[in-house]
């Protein structure tokens, strides 16, 4: 061993373990000798210690608001599927958790005909208390009531909330968390769209609108209006 030898990867590994105190007495002596005599060993050790310190400094991560409370209220951590649309729209398992959240938060039927649609309070959507949902409420006093409810939420006081008018549609948006969660309520001409989703896209919304329009023959213009809304939310 000399100070000019390139550092053997096995020595580097020993120094890494030495950093954790995970060495035998004999290894400890060998590591200490390297550190005393070899600048390469010292540089290696110091850089590994910096990495360890950086990892140790990461700190704790808060779960999303209400994450555990929902499970505890529901009485089980097991997700249940409540939404065929959600399931087909997004195949991943965590989407099903969204279904469970919906079941717990409100008896919420996703993309049913207007007469069947039960929407969660907009305040819950705004607070992120409901999971992945996509709802349409077309026309009538229900839609108006929902838009009034959205209007009553103090969106501007939410961490990243805003209220705006896009493409003629009134929108209330809360882009929360460090992920890409998005809570949006849109109102236009008697159609209210409520979204609380990570990656709902325009095509899903349009498809949902078509489905509602098919289910509700009395409102043939709904599909077009939903398409307009999708364009307002996601231009292009």
């Amino acid at each position, binding site marked *: 061993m000399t100070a000019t030898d390139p*550092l053997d990867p096995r020595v580097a590994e020993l120094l890494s373990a030495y950093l*954790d105190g995970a060495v035998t007495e004999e290894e400890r002596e060998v590591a200490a000798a390297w550190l005393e005599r070899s*600048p390469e060993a010292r540089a290696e050790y110091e850089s590994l210690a910096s990495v360890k310190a*950086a990892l140790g400094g990461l700190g704790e991560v808060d779960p999303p608001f209400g994450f555990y409370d929902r499970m505890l209220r529901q009485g089980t951590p097991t997700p249940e599927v409540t939404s065929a649309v959600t399931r087909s729209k997004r195949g991943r398992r965590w989407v099903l958790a969204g279904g469970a959240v919906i079941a717990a938060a409100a008896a919420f039927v996703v993309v049913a005909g207007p007469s069947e649609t039960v929407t969660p309070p907009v305040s819950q959507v705004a607070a992120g208390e409901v999971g992945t949902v996509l709802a349409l409420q077309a026309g009538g006093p229900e839609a108006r009531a929902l838009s009034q409810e959205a209007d009553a939420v103090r969106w501007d006081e939410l961490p990243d909330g805003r209220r705006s008018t896009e493409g003629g549609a009134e929108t209330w948006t809360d882009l929360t968390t460090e*992920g890409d969660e998005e809570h949006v309520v849109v109102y236009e001409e008697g159609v209210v769209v409520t979204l609380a989703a990570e990656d709902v896209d325009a095509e899903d919304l349009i498809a949902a609108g078509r489905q509602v329009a098919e289910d509700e023959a009395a409102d043939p213009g709904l599909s077009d209006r939903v398409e307009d809304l999708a364009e307002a939310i996601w231009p292009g």
Partner: protein
Amino acid sequence: VPTWEDVARTHGRFLYTVAYRLCGNHDDAQDLVQEVLVRVQRGLVTYQPGSLEGWLSRITTNAFLDEVRRRKRRPADLLHDTDAWDRIAPSTVAADEQLAIDQLPAHVQEAVRGLPDDYRAAVVLCDVVGLPYEEIADSLGVPVGTVRSRIHRGRARLRDVLVEPG
């Protein structure tokens, strides 16, 4: 034996932190936490009196690696193929190098996320959770020597990614 409700109430933040550090994103972390709680609820894991956090870390890591294996039945991603990484010797530092390591949490987390899954599990259990090598070996079902190698290789890789231009 703690119930899943106990775990959620008293160690929810810790559990979520481990899950998030392993997964690197909130969606998968939530999935993972639910899976852990399901395992606790169904009695699929045995608890021996001792560190509850160590126990939770082991369950979480096992559930994480189970999911990783499940996903790997799909076409392999070479970047996350530990065997491929094992064939490359980890870097070392020259004597005259004074390396500054980027400590910004978001950058560190992103770098951790880029590690092969086996390395990431070992590094997280060691440097984030603070488990001793023996417990990590027990959690991962590998010899202590393998744990030592993975932790070192993981750290060396993180250093390469996080080193700030001097």
